[in-house]
């Protein structure tokens, strides 16, 4: 088996990244023509006396962090279950509540209590995600319906856990996690994305999880006959999504230094599903490429920041974003793809026939 074929069978189709890469390229070109200073990066000193990198590019990569991390997990759930988890925003609020609850128990916030907070937050979130996973894998409920339960009640549960409307976390450690670590001008959330990416890469490199997930997503029955337990694989995808949601929630809480259970990670489920779709992944499950979804997340954020830079108010951004996203999704649809490839072959054959005539 040649190396190329092997890659092709292990990951999504080779052309999968075409759509997100082209979309990203167009956005970059558009901004270059509109205003080259869009890409300028500067260094400024903020109130805490830290040097921070500033500029639109940094703002895009930084702001997209939570979305990028959640879309990694969403890709896995999509691939294994052939459906999406729409409760990630609400479960994110629960995750944030666990984190804040642990930190506000002690008198002061220390590195130890932060680590404990993250562990408790991860475990608690995984528990809620296992609830989703059980409904989907054991009871075979449509993922969107199964996760509708936590989608609607998750934010109330978050309030019960934290027991206060907007608990505050005021500590240099928290601002270092949500903003920048003193001495390092790069925003910390960017490191969290890299960390999660590397972690997932290692998991896929040293286990057969990718192969198993894809086989369950493509044909559950065939996977079972070959000794793969679909229930376990689906549950595992929800567990990994739970870890992603926890990290994203911690970023969200630390960024503001407070928890608002009503608005933490609000509407992120829709953007995450979009990121998966823009990344060229099949929303019906099967083969997947996480890097595609991550690219999708950055495209969504770049679009938002571009619109901000063009003086579109945040409330209106959604409408403009929708237009661009329709174009990207339609361009990536099988119908259009088939049309384009047939157009290319026709052009090629016509060129060949013209060339033949010239020869004659």
């Amino acid at each position, binding site marked *: 088996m040649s190396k190329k074929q092997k890659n092709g069978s292990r990951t999504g189709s080779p052309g999968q990244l075409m759509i997100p890469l082209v979309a990203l390229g167009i956005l970059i070109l558009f901004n270059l023509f509109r205003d080259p200073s869009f890409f300028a990066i500067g260094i400024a000193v903020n109130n805490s006396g830290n040097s921070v990198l*500033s500029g639109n590019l940094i703002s895009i990569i930084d702001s997209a962090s939570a979305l990028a991390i959640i879309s990694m997990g969403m890709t896995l759930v999509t691939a294994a279950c052939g459906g999406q988890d729409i409760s990630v925003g609400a479960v994110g609020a629960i995750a944030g509540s666990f984190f804040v609850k642990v930190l506000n128990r002690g008198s002061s916030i220390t590195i130890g209590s932060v680590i404990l907070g993250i562990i408790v937050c991860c475990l608690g979130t995984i528990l809620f995600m296992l609830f989703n996973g059980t409904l989907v894998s054991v009871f075979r409920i449509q993922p969107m319906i199964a996760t509708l339960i936590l989608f609607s009640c998750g934010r109330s549960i978050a*309030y019960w856990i934290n027991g206060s409307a907007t608990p505050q976390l005021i500590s240099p450690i928290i601002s270092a996690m949500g903003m920048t670590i003193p001495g390092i001008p790069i925003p910390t959330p960017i490191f969290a994305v890299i960390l999660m990416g590397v972690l997932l890469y290692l998991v896929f490199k040293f286990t057969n999880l990718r192969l198993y997930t894809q086989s369950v997503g493509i044909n559950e029955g065939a996977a079972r006959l070959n000794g793969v337990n679909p229930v376990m694989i689906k549950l595992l995808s929800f567990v990994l999504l739970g870890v992603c949601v926890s990290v994203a929630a911690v970023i969200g809480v630390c960024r503001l230094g407070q928890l608002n259970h009503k608005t933490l990670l609000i509407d992120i489920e829709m953007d995450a599903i979009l990121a998966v779709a823009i990344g060229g992944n099949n929303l019906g499950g099967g083969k997947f490429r996480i890097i595609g979804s991550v690219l999708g997340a950055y495209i969504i954020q770049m679009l938002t920041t571009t619109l901000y830079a063009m003086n579109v108010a945040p409330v209106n951004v959604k409408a403009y974003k929708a237009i661009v996203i329709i174009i990207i999704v339609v361009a990536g649809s099988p119908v259009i793809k088939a049309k384009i490839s047939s157009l290319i072959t026709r052009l090629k054959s016509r060129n060949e026939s013209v060339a033949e005539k010239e020869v004659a």
Partner: protein
Amino acid sequence: MKKLIALVLALVMCLAATAALADGIKVGIINLDPSESGYREANVKDLNETFTAENGYDATFVTAPTADKQLEAAKGFITDGVKYILVSAAETTGWDDVLQEAKDNGIGVFLFDRMIECDPELYTAAVVSDMRSEGVTAVEWLESLGLEEYNILHIQGQLGSAAQIGRSEPLQEKVAADDKWTMVREGTGGDSWDPEEARKIAQAAIDAGEKFNIVYAENDGMADGVVAALDAAGITHGVNGDVVIMGFDCNKWALRKLLAGEWNYDGQCSPFQAKLIDEMIKGLEEGKEIEGLNELKQIINVEKGFDAKTITEDDVNTYGLGE
């Protein structure tokens, strides 16, 4: 058999009557959801701590975020035969029928925190904040800074709410009247006064390269959201910074930021109406008239604004809400 039923009924009524006597003044309190904000949390807690059995009350508390649930609760209280109803209404209209029914049944109605648009005859008194004076105080403070120019980033609250209108209008009027004052950008944190939305508005202004030196946010959470965007972009703020930060509500954590010089101003919005209402009810029970009401039967809670340069540790502990 009939005799037995009559006997049982009579017994039950006797029990109910003695229970009512023993439990003190029967009041029904209708509030909004405490998870709404730090303000509401403090408000609900204040009422819970004031209308207790030890203080001579038999109080039932209902917190409901929507008008229909609140109206339902009010009707329930009327059927229950409470003596007083206390309301902080989710919506300003639609209360006329219920309030009329309460009046017909001789029930006293106190409005707190939020006004209802109806004939003042339908309620006994209202204990409210003058949101407009909060806005006027803030704008006067801003003017007293005597800056060369005022380039303002204005983060509004839930559009159409009394707090938003009262805090927005004085600023908007000043901007319209004075050439030195410019509104760089105006946005809203939406119905939940969302800090994250405020952060996005500030981020958008920074991304678009707009220069502002004043942040006028209509509550503490949203001011904090803007500050997060400023910190990320490396823009200094507060007493020694480039941007003046203003918030409202006086949460304890916000006042601490004033004390640390990270913010410049915080306007008070007092959630403590329970004590005033308690005094009025006790007065009525002793047969006294309520005094000091204006033409809308209001008693205005006195409120102030705090400056980062003059605030003290005592102010934080006395006026700060929550922990």
